[in-house]
């Protein structure tokens, strides 16, 4: 009971201590958007022939005529009340747009991370068990390939091979075939929703849609995960307690898994958290290539259109997710490693 209380106190403290960072991010993004060239009023005016009066009216309605500090104060007040403004391109409140698109991005990122871990961990372990061997070099080659190939190239390659040449994958546009019925919106994650409703056919359709973009992203983050696993496994395998485990005659598998891997996973956990946050923000190219209706592509469109509100909302969202992911990693770390004190 006391540990639970300690954990929740720690969580609370962490959340409170991350508030200044989030505030800083919000203010910085706000200022950055104002500094960037491009006048949204001009952009959203009815056309190139719009008169000065029309632009001025638009500017006033958008609050752009007020001094920047006042604009910032108003924006902060809005953020505090949960109002992230309205997107000029979609005409919807940013919160609504984000809420609709975030599950798509999250689902893609989770799937990609899952695939990446599923591949990277065994690769890293095998490479660490036989350093300098052929397997080790092969793993290094795969990782290098994954990291040096831009995601849009590997994405297009995958589409070319699996959709165009082999025809195994469905039309790589969106989360689901336009002719299929969407599941009821329960969690927003199609794979989960289909599974809940027991719609196997729909689940398979969604799965085949997500597999290519997820693999593209997984390929990109394979390297940090596999290399980290290898390095951390190598250092753990060389440590004194592995020698102890061998000296009392523990079976090889037990030495590798219970003694070495469990210790080696601790740094991998930290890296996985960072990788997750990076993926979520950086998957804009993948979303573009696969027409994935996620938050990243939405934000890119808004940025191009000098549409302030969605970009600011996106940055805020990412900052929030980053804080959250780090918190989760911290808690998991505390559970996995008894040396990390709860307090």
């Amino acid at each position, binding site marked *: 009971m006391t540990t639970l209380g300690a954990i929740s106190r720690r969580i609370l403290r962490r959340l409170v201590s991350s508030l200044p960072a989030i505030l800083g991010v919000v203010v910085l993004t706000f200022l950055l958007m104002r500094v960037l060239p491009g006048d949204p009023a001009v952009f959203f005016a009815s056309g190139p022939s719009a008169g000065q009066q029309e632009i001025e009216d638009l500017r006033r309605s958008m609050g752009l005529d007020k001094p920047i500090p006042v604009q910032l104060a108003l924006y902060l007040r809005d953020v505090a009340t949960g109002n992230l403004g309205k997107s000029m391109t979609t005409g919807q409140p940013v919160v609504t747009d984000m809420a609709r698109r975030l599950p798509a991005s999250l689902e893609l990122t989770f799937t990609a991370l899952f695939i990446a871990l599923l591949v990277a961990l065994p690769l890293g372990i095998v490479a660490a068990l036989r350093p300098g061997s052929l397997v080790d070099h092969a793993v290094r080659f795969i990782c290098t390939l994954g990291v040096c190939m831009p995601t849009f190239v590997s994405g297009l390659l995958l589409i070319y091979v699996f959709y165009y040449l082999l025809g195994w994958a469905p039309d790589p546009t969106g989360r689901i075939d336009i002719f299929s019925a969407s599941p009821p919106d329960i969690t927003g994650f199609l794979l989960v929703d289909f599974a809940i409703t027991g719609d196997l056919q729909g689940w398979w359709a969604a799965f085949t849609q997500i597999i290519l973009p997820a693999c593209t992203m997984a390929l990109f983050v394979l390297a940090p995960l596999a290399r980290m696993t290898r390095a951390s496994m190598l250092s753990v395998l*060389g*440590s*004194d*307690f592995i*020698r*102890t*485990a*061998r*000296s*009392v*005659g*523990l*079976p*090889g598998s*037990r030495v590798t898994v*219970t*003694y070495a891997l*469990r*210790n080696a996973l*601790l740094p991998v956990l930290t890296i996985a958290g960072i990788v997750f946050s990076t993926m979520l923000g950086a998957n804009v190219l993948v979303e573009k290539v696969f027409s994935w209706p996620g938050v990243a592509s939405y934000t890119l469109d808004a940025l191009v259109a000098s549409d302030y509100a969605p970009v600011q909302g996106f940055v805020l969202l990412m900052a929030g997710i980053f804080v959250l992911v780090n918190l989760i990693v911290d808690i998991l770390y505390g559970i*996995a*490693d*008894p*040396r990390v004190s709860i307090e």
Partner: protein
Amino acid sequence: MTELLRIEDLRVAFSTRAGTVDALHGVSLSLEKGQTLGLVGESGSGKSVTAYAITRLLDRAGKITGGRILFRGTDVTRVPERDLRALRGAAMSMIFQNPRAALNPIRSVGDQIADAIRAHRDLSKKEARAQALDLLKAVLIRDPETRLDAYPHELSGGMCQRIMIAMAIACEPDLLIADEPTTGLDVTTQKTVMDLLARITADRGMAMVLITHDLGLAAQYCRDIVVMERGRIVESGETRALFSDPQHPYTRRLIAASPTPRSTVEDLARAAQEAGEVLPPIAATPRPAPEPGTPPLLEVRNLIKDYGAPTRAVDDVSFSIPRGGSLGLVGESGSGKSTLSRLICRLIDKTDGDVIFDGEAIGGIPARDFHRAPQRRDIQIVFQDPNDSLNPRFSAFDSIAHPLRTLEGLRDGATLKARVEEAAQRSGLPPELLTRFPHQLSGGQKARVGIARAIALRPRLLVLDEPTAALDVSVQAIILNLLDRLRREDGMAFLFVSHDLNVVRMMCERVVVLRLGKVVEEGSGHSLFANPQSAYTRELLAAIPHFDPAPVPVQA
């Protein structure tokens, strides 16, 4: 008696970047059932390599290139890797140095002991746990039921070593190899751990090979001794006979260099000379004793350091060191001796009390500003670990020149070069080594760089924090002898922090015994050791392995 282990002409080679290096050149020894054998020698002598070869735990680079290891009649060197598992733990097991690192940090000790049991016995988890509990009782762990679920970081070093012993004896092997089992533990802990090991091996009829650099430990706990040097056995025999009448010059040197209750710095000087140490010429004439009535160089008054723990790290400590005097601080880990030395060096801030150096109170200067105080030059420190206390990217010259550059503002040039070379020469560091980096120097050479760095500024107080703890005895003898000369020549005062009571007795005029941050006893080195007043000091003294070989005849 039946023979348990026989090693015949064992050769081990390590493949390194520089090619193959032979670590053992034909080692032969034998061990009977229930026998205790001490394997002594300095670092690089091959004693640990021998042990790892017996258990086939040599790391990837090491290879047995020749010879046989007959264990209960079977040649261990020819057992295939997959059959070794049945041997390890069940027939022979090991105890390692640095017990905390030798245990899995994220697995409870009870599970680890149970793992060791279940590796060889077909028991349920519950049965293994019950056995683990019995083992914890056997290694005298207090409150064993709760300790089963403890993690290594929650236990003291001595307790971790007992857990390690419990794991090693879990499946009742015939042979136990203890590789420096008490290095890094306090003397009193060392005594309890070694007594426990001796009792357990005797009770269960196990043979033990004790690998140690401490001749006293080997003499006290082993029936026979094997002395190794550079991968060869130079001498072996029954303990008492071997130490009272050593035949090989290396054994003689080793014995001469080992501090005993009677040895003096002069003995060490002789040992140092025998080892071929060429001492630099005396740079200054010994200074006369200070006039009576001059204030002490350092005075510590009611010093307190409180980290907020239930007990204070340093609790109301007072003592003084006269000019050119030497004071030893002894105590076990947690006694506050390192905290105290850091407070005096002004590396950390006090909670209360004062430090008075040469009549000026320096305790009030914040630690982060002390580098600007004029006293910084006068108080220098020699750190414990010569490996970690040197910047790996600095050559020996740069390391020694660093304080001269930052505190005296010397620029590169003839003056700096002369000062560095002088300091190096006085520390016995050959000038041609000055261009080398720490990884290209031996442990003793690194210790000399650390000393040269500290004396380059000609400080008036030198704080020595276990300066020889990481060194071999023969190197230690040389370094201690060197430090003693430096003190006499320069009239430097010493604050000597050590857990080795014999060393402190030799080096220091006065000794302060600390326990839990408090002064337990203070007195002149001689009287305190001859006639300790407090029970704690008596306990400390009694825990030192008693090593008192007959006086070694001086070579003609």
